[in-house]
């Protein structure tokens, strides 16, 4: 993201620059403050803050994390998030890359319509589809070994599918743009070698799309992990909620204790923050893919 500094253009610090740094520094600190406050609160005992108020110093403890982890059963909910996020991201990338490949590789009249259909699906308000989808999910049976609810409703399968259907559109759009930029000669060479369409997709196109796939995977993991609505309305059993939607149950259990709420919030934020700091470049690139070169 940082622009290359062209030689000779770096000037000595002028007063205007100092003001700019002060301004941006203040904003940045202000922006981080709510998170900082959550972390701070999570390490203080409720007894201490109840007596001295939150604008005080002291009462340090890690008990909130222990209690929050135990009462809200975070271990289980993190696992649920994992069961949903990993298959959903893999399936989204696979299906989206298939469609994107066909759109980019062959020119049919229906390509634009296909692209529009997928991209628009990603932008529709989820709540507007809830009623028929909710009914549909409560009507579709699943064998007991797939879900103890024996329905698509209240099952991981249902959540995975709905996430995939929604996220596909965005990935199709980004990937098809990316694939269109690949030189067409690649395919001609592959065809001379007698490569089938599937091999062209799997062995020529996909390896070249690795940067785009990495950026999209980072982004989709964050989004599906953060997904709140579908899990809230399409799940019933408290034990099966992914961690983001289980937050809402946490409120009932912790309702008088903000220190516990903050510890829970920090726990839920940790996976996305880790991804963000490790893969910041991928994350930013995913969001702006196509806008900048590369």
């Amino acid at each position, binding site marked *: *993201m*940082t622009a290359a*500094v062209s030689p000779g253009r770096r000037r000595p610090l002028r007063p205007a620059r100092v003001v700019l740094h002060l301004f*941006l520094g203040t*904003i940045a600190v202000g*922006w*981080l403050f*709510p*998170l900082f406050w959550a972390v701070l609160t999570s390490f203080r005992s409720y007894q201490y803050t109840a007596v001295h108020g939150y604008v005080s110093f002291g009462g340090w403890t890690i008990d909130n994390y222990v209690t929050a982890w135990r009462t809200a059963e975070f271990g289980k909910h993190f696992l649920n998030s994992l069961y949903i996020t990993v298959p959903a991201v893999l399936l989204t990338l696979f*299906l*989206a890359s*298939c469609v994107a490949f066909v759109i980019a590789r*062959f020119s049919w009249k229906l390509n634009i319509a*296909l692209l*529009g259909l*997928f*991209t628009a699906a*990603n932008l*529709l*308000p*989820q*709540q*507007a*589809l*809830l*009623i*028929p*989808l909710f009914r*549909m999910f409560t009507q579709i049976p699943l064998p007991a070994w797939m879900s103890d609810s024996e329905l698509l409703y209240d099952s991981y399968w249902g959540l995975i599918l709905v996430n*995939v259907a*929604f996220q596909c*559109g*965005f990935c199709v759009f*980004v990937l098809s*743009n990316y694939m269109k930029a*690949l030189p067409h000669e690649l395919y001609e060479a592959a*065809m001379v070698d007698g490569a*089938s*369409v599937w091999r062209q997709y799997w062995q020529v196109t996909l390896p070249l799309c690795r940067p785009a796939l990495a950026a999209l995977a980072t982004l989709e993991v964050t*989004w599906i992990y*953060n*997904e*709140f*609505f579908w899990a*809230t309305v399409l799940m019933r059993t408290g034990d099966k909620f992914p961690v983001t939607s289980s*937050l*809402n149950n946490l*409120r009932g259990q912790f309702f008088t204790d*903000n220190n516990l709420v*903050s510890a829970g919030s920090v726990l839920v*934020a940790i996976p*996305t*923050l880790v991804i*963000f700091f490790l893969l910041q470049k991928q*994350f*930013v690139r995913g*969001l702006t*893919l*196509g*806008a900048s070169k590369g």
Partner: protein
Amino acid sequence: MSDLPLIQADRAVPPPAATTATGGRGRRLRLLSGTDRVVITLMVLVPLLLVLALVWLPAAATVLLSGTDWDGIGPLGEIDWVGLKNYDDVVNNYPPFVPAVQNNLLWLAALFVVATPIGMFLAVLLDKELRGSRFYQTALYLPVVLSLALVGFIWQLIYSRDQGLLNGVFGGDTDWYGDPNVNIWAVLVAAGWRHVGYIMLLYLAGLKGVDPSLREAAAVDGSSETSTFFRVVFPVMRPINIIVLVVTVIESLRAFDLVWVINKGRNGLELISALVTQNVVGEASRIGFGSALATIMLAVSLIFITVYLWTVMREDKR
């Protein structure tokens, strides 16, 4: 999930090979073997069926159901067509509807008039060659990786009546999330906190794509930095401006998580999305009525989705 990313064609790339090869289409198709055709069909059909079944079919069903009086229990054969009655009920006999529309519009206005310009302004500042720019950027878009549900919880620590920072520092006793006179504003601050970083990111990428020679030419002409931005840079970023507009509209329409974790969208925090959900999963399951609300959402979003697609596809063709 609630993020709409910036999608824009890469102008540095030559026109897509696929469109230039239209003339050879028939020839290439004939070169495909039978297996290849089956593979291609499956590659499109499987994802297509999934999206049709789980997105477009429900969307169409919502529109149809909005004209019926189905209670969600009886068999589909007993559904009566009631025309626009549900819409009439929504507008005239449903007290939360007007506040919900007002709140959605307020949400849009707050994001569009306050958060978006701040994000753009910060992007312009960060676009300068600045030491420490990375730190500032990271701080600003850190909230973007958090879910809106989590944002609601994090701000509760500031807004809570008895345990919140705001009342702790200023000594008031306002329940910022609970008081129907102020809670929408409190929520909008939290939503804006996340939106600013997102817009900043989009414009930062847009600004990097502006041809530097445009700015140099304007500077040679004696144009000030401010007027260069408004007269030269801003108009050049037109596609991004449209995308940001659409993103903001759709985000405001889809706003849900934040109010749902606070109080399920009641008592001053009514939003259309929350009303739809209340009518389906809540105590009263009023399918036709809820569908009418949902159809209104669909109609508004489809207008902006069309604008969006039109913009990105046109960029694509260039």
